[in-house]
């Protein structure tokens, strides 16, 4: 068996992205360097032979996914309700959690200006957000953060891929005070 075949078999069978060190566990003959080189071979092969799928870097790993241009054909087969897109409120709460993690519910609610326990529950149910600890403050409220599934769902390789505040429109940038104050999360349960 050639390394790229073993790696293809493993990626093909997995329904989630795999990191190169995970892939290397499939056989003694593999190490991370071999895996990375073989992944490159595979990616090139899929591109040049015009496969309907390609090798995508995702959530700090790799996954074989269909190319975006084939989605109209696939949608014809979607007779099972597809995992729906997130609602506006859920997306908004998620944006706050992604940038401010670890963050408590009350702080999310303060930033949004509305109650958010329902949407946070939804985000947890969808595996996009999880409890990552407790604040030191009064009542030791739960703190939330994003999951690997979050990266997968949005096609990010890591949290570094989130749009950066300095890339946002100018009007938001000419502020002297930091948009995200560097507090330590102690005042999470304020008001």
């Amino acid at each position: 068996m050639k390394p790229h075949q073993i790696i293809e078999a493993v990626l093909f069978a997995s329904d989630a992205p795999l990191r190169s060190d995970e892939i290397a566990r499939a056989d003694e003959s593999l190490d991370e360097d071999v895996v990375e080189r073989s992944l490159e071979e595979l990616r090139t092969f899929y591109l040049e032979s015009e496969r309907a799928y390609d090798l995508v870097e995702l959530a700090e790993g790799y996954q074989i996914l269909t190319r975006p241009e084939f989605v109209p054909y696939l949608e014809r087969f979607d007779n099972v309700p597809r995992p729906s897109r997130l609602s506006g409120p859920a997306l908004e709460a998620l944006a706050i959690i992604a940038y401010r993690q670890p963050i408590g519910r009350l702080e999310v609610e303060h930033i949004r200006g509305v109650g958010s326990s329902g949407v946070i529950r939804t985000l947890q149910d969808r595996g996009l957000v999880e409890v990552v600890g407790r604040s030191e403050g009064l009542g030791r409220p739960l703190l939330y953060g994003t999951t690997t599934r979050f990266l997968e769902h949005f096609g990010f390789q890591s949290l570094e891929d989130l749009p950066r505040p300095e890339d946002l429109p100018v009007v938001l940038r000419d502020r002297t005070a930091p948009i995200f104050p560097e507090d330590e999360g102690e005042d999470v349960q304020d008001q």
Partner: protein
Amino acid sequence: MKTARLPADSSKRFVVDIDRFQGPLELLLHLIREQDVDIFDIPISRITNQFLEVVREIEAHDLDSAGSFLEMAATLVRIKAQMILPRPSEEEDEDPRAELVRRLLEYEQIREITLRLGRAEAERARRRSKGYLEARPRPSFEDVPLETEWEEVLAAALDVRLPEPFDSDHRVTPRTVSMEEKSQLILTSLGSGTGVEFRRLLEPFREKIHGVMTFLAGLELSRRRRILLRQSGPFKELWIYRRDEDDASDDATTDPPIHPDSTVPDPNGER
């Protein structure tokens, strides 16, 4: 779609689609951006009036979120009051609007990020992983692949044996108890020692049938002069003794009579 007509000022009126707003911050931001107001110098009186106008509509529609809008309305009214009051020392005290502006800017940035996340989500949704499509509805089953191969099923098939046809007696009693079995039990129990209590032969069994069959086996063995049955009196313990082949012939008369009341000892009876 619920709408509210806003008196922006005497000359300008515009319509706000209430359903569009998730919360008070979004509405406030809309009022400010829509009218091209400088966010660092919000005309608090005018914006407050417009905000209250919309909140009345929201209350009228009894929206669930009315509470958070009312809370913001209260904040606006308080800021408005603070603006009118003379500030003791202008240099030290913050503008009463400062905290609100900070929140609005932060929220506006979140709105922008939310938009971008939505776009990223839509783009990612255009790629599908293997097995994404469930083309035909099927019953749900454990999500674990099955490793069993056909050879194993076939081997099981080849091993299938119909049970022996059995007579109707056996249908009544699911597990049969035979006298032979019980005779064997008695002789084995006597194997090492000389005597054994009848009761002890019943201990491992629950059903009455074991008592009956053991007793019948004992009678039969006694009749064939293989054992001796002894009981000191009615309801007393029944003992079984081995009878050696040698004295099989001469000892018949010494057998004590079995008490008539003890025909079928109850295995669950008194000890």
